[in-house]
């Protein structure tokens, strides 16, 4: 069980309101990702759910029970911190056992649970080491181990992968996703990396300045972003947002077209420009195109290695049915 419901939750630090009234429901077993630029309040929101910060007004319900005034330990949630927050003077075994010892569980039960967590997370060989003797990925796993032994109602992850190098991050991403499939426990995951959000989430919550911009599955957000912020934030490289006369042709204030939805043609395309930087990834090539007369640098993805160089003229045709239209407030026009 692990349904979490926020009703009209707000948070202010002094006079500064970082989270205006906010409603959100996280269903049991869901992998929910809070994503947004730094300073958007996503970590604060997670800490409010954890109970590490008091909410200013509103209510938090966990499994249908009001948890607004409960201390963190009583909420039945486990958290994995950005710095892992392992206890440096304890062995891995003691680190993982700490929450169980605090709960005054019998020693035999503690041992069984620690062994179990260690085998799930491939930590068996490291149980008697100190955190200082482990690599970043192993520390991460210990932190997760400390969370899973408690068998919490939900896991909270606060940017857990941001201290790992790129290769390890991809690996840990998979491991956390696998873990979620195995445990089927509610997980809330905070990140500023939209790739992590897209690859892991059942449900993405896009936040900006404490306000939820859109909630939906990764593909919903990709296919129909509710506004220009979500459109620009989700997807890599970013969606091209074009204003001015070109947008007016489509009866919109802003139009958006993703780099992968623009075709490079030999001649006679809708748009024409000069190639700036070309990023050759082998499988795809990203061109940054200037002087299109659209007022913005346009990013285009071409499949494979297209042999256009810096300064070449390029002809482009956007796919008409993939153009997103937004009004003056930046909201999507259906």
């Amino acid at each position: 069980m692990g349904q979490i419901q926020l009703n009209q939750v707000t948070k202010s630090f002094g006079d500064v309101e970082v989270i205006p009234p906010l409603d959100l429901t996280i269903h049991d077993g869901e992998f929910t990702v809070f994503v947004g630029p730094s300073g958007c309040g996503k970590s604060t929101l997670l800490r409010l759910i954890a109970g590490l910060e008091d909410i200013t007004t509103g209510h938090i319900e966990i499994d249908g029970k009001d948890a607004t005034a409960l201390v963190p330990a009583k909420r039945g949630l486990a958290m994995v911190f950005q710095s892992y927050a392992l206890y440096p003077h304890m062995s891995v075994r003691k680190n993982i056992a700490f929450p169980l010892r605090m709960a005054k569980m019998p020693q035999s039960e503690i041992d069984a649970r620690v062994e179990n967590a260690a085998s799930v997370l491939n930590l068996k060989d490291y149980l008697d080491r100190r955190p200082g003797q482990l690599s970043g990925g192993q520390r991460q796993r210990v932190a997760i181990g400390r969370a899973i032994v408690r068998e919490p109602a939900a896991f909270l992850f606060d940017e857990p992968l941001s201290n790992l190098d790129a290769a390890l991050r991809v690996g840990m991403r998979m491991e956390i996703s696998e873990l979620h499939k195995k445990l089927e426990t509610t997980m809330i995951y905070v990140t500023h990396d939209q790739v992590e959000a897209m690859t892991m989430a059942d449900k993405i919550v896009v936040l900006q300045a404490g306000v939820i911009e859109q909630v939906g599955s990764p593909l919903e957000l990709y296919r129909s972003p509710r506004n220009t912020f979500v459109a620009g934030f989700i997807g890599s490289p970013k969606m091209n947002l074009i204003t001015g006369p070109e947008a007016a042709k489509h009866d919109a204030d802003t139009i958006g077209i993703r780099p992968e939805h623009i075709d490079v043609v030999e001649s006679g395309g809708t748009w024409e420009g000069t190639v700036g930087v070309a990023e050759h990834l082998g499988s795809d090539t990203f061109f940054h195109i200037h002087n299109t007369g659209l007022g913005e640098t346009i990013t285009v993805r071409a499949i494979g290695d297209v042999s256009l160089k810096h300064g070449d003229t390029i002809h482009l045709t956007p796919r008409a049915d993939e153009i997103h239209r937004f009004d003056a407030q930046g909201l999507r026009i259906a």
Partner: protein
Amino acid sequence: MATKASRSAARLMMAPAVILLLGWMLVPLIMTLWFSFRTYLPLRGGDQGWTGFDNYVRFVTSSAFWPAVLTTLTIVLSVLIITVALGVLLALLLDKPMWGQGIVRILVIAPFFVMPTVSALVWKNMFMDPVNGLFAHLWRFFGAEPVSWLSDAAMPAIIMIVSWQWLPFATLILLTAIQSLDSEQLEAAEMDGAPTLKRFYHIILPHLSRAITIVILIQTIFLLAVFAEIFVTTGGAFGTRTLSYLIFQRVLESQNIGLGSAGGVYAIILANIVAIFLMRIVGKNLDN
């Protein structure tokens, strides 16, 4: 610092400091050893030649020796316990955000800037004077008979004065250690269900162990040689004669430099025994 040339250059440049330091330590040490084997009575015939181990035997067999060792160890131990315990509490308090934090911190550190002689005199005359001292007034306010601290409770009085002087040092070191504790660790422990006292015991105290070790080691070195506080208050009377005070009396009051030097060598041995003992107990905290 890898090439041969740079390494020998480094050695050459460190040489003056090393030689100066060695001379600084070795000359007095060798002179102490030298005098400890001689009969040297400056006012009664001066240097009268070798006596072998006579001075050493006389110093230990004197009835004042073992009480002096005991007094020294009592003062060191009591002051260590008081300063570390109160230091941890004060550091925890000062770590909390509060109004006027900067001023409070300076005030807490202030006693460390007062010279030992001055602070001992202030304590003696302003607080512990049995007629006009603040304590005497306080005692009388509650209808009690004022305590003549420096004669009736001389050891507690000395321990109090010395602790007051060294508390800022302990607080300062422990405060910086507490400030270096990752707050996420405390939050993690809170999420793991550890209430305040358990968080202190399982997270904060282990984090402080290294700082406490350093406080204990440094303070022990200085506390073994406490002198001014005793000199200006009790003058070594009422059971407050430490080993260093006994040596002072032998050299200056009895005018026996040979005997005093032998005492100095004993003091070195005692300090080393204490140091080894401490290293065994707490030094392993410094390893990892």
